[in-house]
């Protein structure tokens, strides 16, 4: 009998505590949990780094909890968010997505503009002014500010400086010099190539291609949000140059090179003398290579000219979520872009720091003194054009990729391919003109 009573009592207590626990969160209005989607694939160092920032932020703001969702690459994050919103789920408060996704995100009504937050912050104006200008190119649309640069990179050429020195070669300063250097550094054993002069990934080709076009004086996009110049003679010439690197100079594997992930390792292990890749690979390369790694923007066509293009991700704040979450998310954005943190992120990850202030910090100055390559990489930003961003980006980019790869693979001549790309892109952009 007593046992029964006791268990009844225990049950009652359990029920009560259960109810209390269930009620508890409702009584306090403070705690907010926000999610941030972050595109890392296998980059555990970056995920670990980012988790560290989150911890620090939560210490400073005990009523905010930040949950990071690391899900694949940029494309995966975008698709995941699209399907989430589309599937009736709640979008995250924040996401790092390609800077160039701007128009699609605004058109779909996923993101909200940041202007009210910037205006409300006392130092808002100064905060915005401190970002490196070329990283802000894709943040404005429709007279509003939509994103904050965060994980930014640029296209670079990395080279094995030891091999250059052995061969008595200078880093190339023109297309012709580049092709010849590549030719000179290609090594063969009979018919088989044992070391390439250049590896130039083109599985997802627009980004690495852009510096070639810019280096010839014509970017593939214009100032408007629906302007493309795929069939400009200078762009066609740039396509031809990519083909020439393998056909004329024999310095590069023929056709499309689906070797994005493999290229840095290939340079580090001596399978190639040069690679074209993201500045985000700098740290990995500095760690892996047992030779001096040279870093520079891509040579332009004319002697003494160089070109690059920025890339990477910005922070976007989502619409259709609670005000409290948006406020917390904005706080986190500000936290992430403090100069000290931006400097630390750059030093630890290899990405650029997004603001000028970061380069003035002691930590950054010390680091750059030890690794001159970091400063060399930054030169790329001064010679960079705008990254490929237009309305209806997904479709237009697909069109461009499709024909660019057909040209690379010799299925169409560069002129034919680019003319076809232009025509199809015009159709896809018709509705936006």
């Amino acid at each position: 009998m007593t046992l029964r009573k006791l268990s009844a009592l225990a049950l009652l207590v359990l029920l009560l505590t259960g109810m209390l626990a269930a009620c508890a969160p409702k009584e306090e209005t403070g705690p907010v949990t926000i999610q941030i989607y972050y595109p890392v694939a296998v980059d555990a160092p970056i995920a670990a780094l980012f988790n560290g920032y989150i911890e620090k932020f939560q210490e400073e703001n005990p009523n905010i909890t930040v949950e990071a969702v690391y899900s694949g690459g940029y494309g995966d994050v975008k698709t995941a968010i699209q399907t989430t919103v589309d599937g009736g789920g709640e979008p995250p408060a924040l996401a790092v997505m390609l800077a160039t996704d701007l128009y699609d995100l605004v058109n779909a009504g996923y993101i909200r503009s940041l202007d009210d937050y910037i205006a409300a912050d006392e130092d808002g104006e100064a905060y915005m002014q401190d970002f490196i200008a070329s990283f802000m190119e894709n943040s404005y649309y429709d007279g509003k500010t939509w994103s904050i640069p965060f994980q930014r990179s640029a296209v670079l050429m990395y080279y094995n400086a030891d091999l250059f020195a052995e061969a008595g070669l200078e880093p190339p300063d023109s297309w012709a010099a580049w092709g010849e250097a590549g030719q000179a550094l290609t090594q063969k054993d009979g018919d088989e190539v044992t070391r390439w002069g250049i590896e130039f990934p083109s599985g997802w080709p627009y980004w690495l291609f852009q510096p070639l076009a810019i280096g010839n004086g014509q970017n593939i996009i214009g100032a408007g949000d629906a302007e493309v110049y795929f069939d400009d003679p200078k762009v066609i010439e740039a396509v031809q140059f990519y083909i020439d690197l393998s056909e004329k100079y024999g310095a590069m594997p023929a056709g499309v090179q689906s070797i994005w992930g493999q290229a840095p390792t290939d340079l580090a292990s001596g399978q190639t003398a040069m690679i074209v890749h993201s500045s985000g690979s700098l740290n990995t390369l500095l760690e892996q290579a047992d030779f001096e790694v040279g870093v520079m923007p891509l040579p332009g066509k004319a002697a003494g000219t160089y070109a690059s293009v920025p890339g990477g991700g910005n922070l976007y704040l989502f619409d259709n979520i609670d005000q409290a979450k948006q406020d917390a998310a904005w706080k986190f954005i500000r936290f992430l872009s403090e100069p000290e943190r931006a400097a630390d992120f750059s030093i630890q990850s290899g990405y650029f720091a997004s603001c000028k202030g970061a380069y003035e910090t002691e930590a950054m100055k010390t680091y750059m003194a030890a690794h001159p390559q970091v400063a060399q990489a930054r030169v790329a930003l001064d010679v960079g054009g705008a990254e490929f961003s237009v309305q209806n980006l997904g479709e237009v980019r697909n069109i461009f990729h499709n024909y660019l790869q057909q040209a690379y693979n010799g299925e169409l001549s560069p002129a034919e391919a680019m003319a076809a790309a232009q025509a199809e892109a015009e159709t896809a952009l018709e509705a936006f003109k």
Partner: protein
Amino acid sequence: MSNKLRIRAGQLGANFLTLGLSLLWLTPVFWTLIASLRPADDPLGRGNVWFGYTLTLANYWRAWSMAPFGEYYLNTISLVLMILGVQLVTVTIAAFAFTHYQFTGKKALFFFILLQMMIPTSALLAPNFSTISKLGLFDTLLAIGIPYFGSAFGTFLLRQAFLEVPRDLVDAGTIDGCSWWQLLWHIYLPPSFPTLIAFGLSSVIWHWNEFLWPLIVTNSTSSRPLTTGLVRFTQLGEIGAQWSLLTAATLLVVGPLFIIFLIFQRRFIQSFVHSGLK
């Protein structure tokens, strides 16, 4: 005599062919295992793709720490068991109805269900995605599993098996006053066991391996299965292809199912053989 010799020679040739093809077929798995034990700072190169300078398990620890494999495992296992549990019930009772009873519209209903075999669920992922979101199931394990709760394939298979059960036995059971579920449980099911196992294992393998549908209807760690977790490793982002890491992650995903299969393989293949799939 010469005939016998010829047969012997033929047998021997077949043995060598079997051995050669088996090894060829196994090469990818051998390589995966060896590469996963290669130190990460010893990148692959021309003519140097097998053993590194030493063997290490470090890749496994690193891969394990990089993605919440524990959670993914739990999700995959719950998913597979959930689907199998529901399927075994729905399939058994439907097959029983189609075998044991005569009723109006039987043929039409059976054909209707067979539609699911002709139009695989994967082809319908776009409209099914809308259904899932309307049901409010987005990003749940249930969302991954629910389209498969009814199985035309299973109903079809099990009905074939039930049809083989001797009519006399069924009649005897009916005369003894068995209720429908007693008939099903004691008379129909026991001889159909191999079919049930064959179907169950196929179901487990298929759903353990499924990728595209979970990729679409889930987005958080708490509901994503192993396959979608693995893909995080294949999209290498901005750092180099780390084959040793990638292969270790692959084996983390594949390993348990492989081991289970090795233990049950004889049973598995036998049940296929006896399941009346002919």
